[in-house]
């Protein structure tokens, strides 16, 4: 069985290019993130992060502190 635990998927309210730029600042300061992207084309504005060290809750807290809402995408 293949392990996908290193892919974090979050539903967010980051809807604009400006929001994406804020995320860029936040996530670039976070060690352990290999790759990330935000899908602005979808209604869930999915934030997808590749990381082997960070947990979903840490990212949720980080975004909440900057005024964004997000939760695990199920």
């Amino acid at each position, binding site marked *: *069985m*293949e392990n996908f635990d290193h892919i974090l*998927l979050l539903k967010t309210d980051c809807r604009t290019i400006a929001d994406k730029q804020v995320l860029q600042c936040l996530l670039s300061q976070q060690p352990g993130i290999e790759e990330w992207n935000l899908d602005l*084309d*979808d*209604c869930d504005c999915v934030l*997808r992060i590749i990381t082997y060290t960070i947990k979903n809750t840490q990212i949720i807290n980080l975004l909440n502190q900057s005024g964004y809402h997000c939760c695990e*995408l199920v």
Partner: protein
Amino acid sequence: MRARDVDKEQLVKQKAIEGIVKHGLEGFSMNKLAKECKISVATLYIYYKDRDDLIIKITEEEGVKMAETILGDFDIEASFEDGLRMQWKNRFKYMMDNPYITVFFEQIRSSSYHASFLKSFKENFEAPVTEFMNNVVARGEIRKMPLEVYWSIAFAPLYALIRFHNEGQSVGGVPFKISDEILWETFDLVVKALKNVG
């Protein structure tokens, strides 16, 4: 831990192509696709980074599959008529077996994903098709001409017939259904147009 499900991945690709053909690129979203496949949106995002990534990957994969089917038994050293006949046979079969693919590629070609389509075409088709054309020119079977001119005469009639067939009507709305007779009659005219006499 999630398991990679090959059948599910296949279903995702098939439904994505169908969705894009039916609703256009504008009406296509990851959420709609997940619903169509009866899977969670999260599962889709495991395999694909986003909507763009999904469309680009499917375009590239389908380009490879199409090339494998069409060029699989194609001999670039064949005579002009035999080689072209094989190309027509393979392309016709592929498009009849995969009715959505032709429309899918047409939509991709006229969208911002055009570059992915071109990359796929260049990697998979350009070399054998050009080599075959150069070989038949070198043997004096057809005259030297730009690849675009060759392609337009050699294949555009086939694609026009298939489009009429898929739309169920031809010029002026006349009902149309392709047959072997019509296909090979058109092929003979194409050969006549391109082949050197004597």
